[in-house]
């Protein structure tokens, strides 16, 4: 057995302190230890993108790092997008433009798009397609995903 480690992380603005086994994946830590099950776990080897979260502002795959590595980090998950009253413009756009059907990939889509729109507030459709290509969706055929991100960009520019 290996010794558990104490880690401190901030997730969606809330500080947590937990003891974790070093082999605990960040995604399992979020879902099972913090009970933040908005982040989905799909392929578990960095292909599908469903588990994407923001780590210190950068979108990363939470199945490809260990929770111990996030000690001291500021994490944002899909639960951090909406405030208590209304959806984030990205979420509203995905709803409006049918950017999801089964919803499994959606947390990954949203967090990937969130980082992308922060860096590219006025993207071309080609740029959206390229950046979103790292998240797999088996329902939508991607057309509506691209439409949703473009719509979100428009709404976010207005603010």
């Amino acid at each position, binding site marked *: 057995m290996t010794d558990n480690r104490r880690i401190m992380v901030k997730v969606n603005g809330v500080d947590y302190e937990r003891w974790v086994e070093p082999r605990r994946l960040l995604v399992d830590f979020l879902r099972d230890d913090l009970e933040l099950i908005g982040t989905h776990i799909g392929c578990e080897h960095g292909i599908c993108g469903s588990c994407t979260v923001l780590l210190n502002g*950068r*979108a990363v795959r939470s199945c490809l790092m260990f929770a111990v590595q996030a000690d001291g980090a500021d994490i944002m998950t899909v639960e951090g997008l909406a405030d208590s009253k209304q959806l984030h413009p990205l979420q509203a756009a995905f709803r409006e433009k049918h950017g999801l059907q089964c919803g499994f990939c959606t947390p990954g889509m949203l967090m990937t798009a969130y980082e992308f729109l922060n860096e590219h507030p006025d993207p071309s459709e080609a740029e959206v397609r390229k950046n979103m290509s790292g998240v797999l969706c088996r329902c939508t055929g991607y057309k509506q995903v691209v439409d949703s991100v473009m719509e979100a960009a428009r709404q976010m520019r207005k603010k």
Partner: protein
Amino acid sequence: MKPCAFEYFSPQSVTEAVALLDRYGDDAKIIAGGQSLVPMMNFRLARPEILIDINGIRELEYIKTEGDELVIGALTRERDVEQSPLVIEKWPLLSKAVSYIGHSTIRNRGTIGGSLVHADPSAEIPTSLCALNGKVKVMGPSGEKELAPEEFFLTYLTTSLEPSDLLVEVRIPALPQKTGWSFRELSRRSGDFAIVAVGILLFTEKTGVCREARISMGGVAPTPVRAERAEALLAGQKISEKLIEQAAQQAAEETETEPDYHASAEYRRDMARVFVKRGLQEAWNMVNGGQ
């Protein structure tokens, strides 16, 4: 699946990391970005007993010049290399090559050193290092050494690093003023591993003659390779469409392609020819104003 249990160390300095490697040798594995290692651990294809996490060694994260050389710390994220104004201005081939790695979320974590020590023959950074005549700096218990690509890459996923060596830095020499370049790759889907990746550099003289050509190919041999005989065909010559065709054909003959489920050996070899040809055309047009 979930990874096997391991003991975890997070050294804060190179000295500390090397001491840990020296102590645990083959039982230990370094983790940097983890974008190749963690999938292998999740599949339990890799079962290191000791994991040495170098992400806390901030002294290994930098992009700068020393003299006119580009110097990049091993822990520098691929995304930072891709977006570095210095790299984009003076070593654009490297930025372009890195942009082909996986997806932005992978590049946010993946490191330049990690890609090199993983030594996947179709990977972009190893292929670029060969084109750019870069070197890697390695720290071991008995001090540091610099290795050229042909000394560093041995075969598939295998380098000449000793168990207690740590790759700490990448060094890339300056490029001359009039340099044409290209980096292109073929993959089935965006972000997939390259079936063929080709990095080209052409150094010209005022007269429009190619002084030196470098053709680096990934995905077509057990390590990234330079097409040396094709380069020799171009060196000192006035470049023509016909000569480019000949050089591309020659480059394809210098591959040692193997079939896999993405492509047959023949297809890979022929795509090496096509991508070398397109790369040479692009690089030549760049320095010769569209001929």
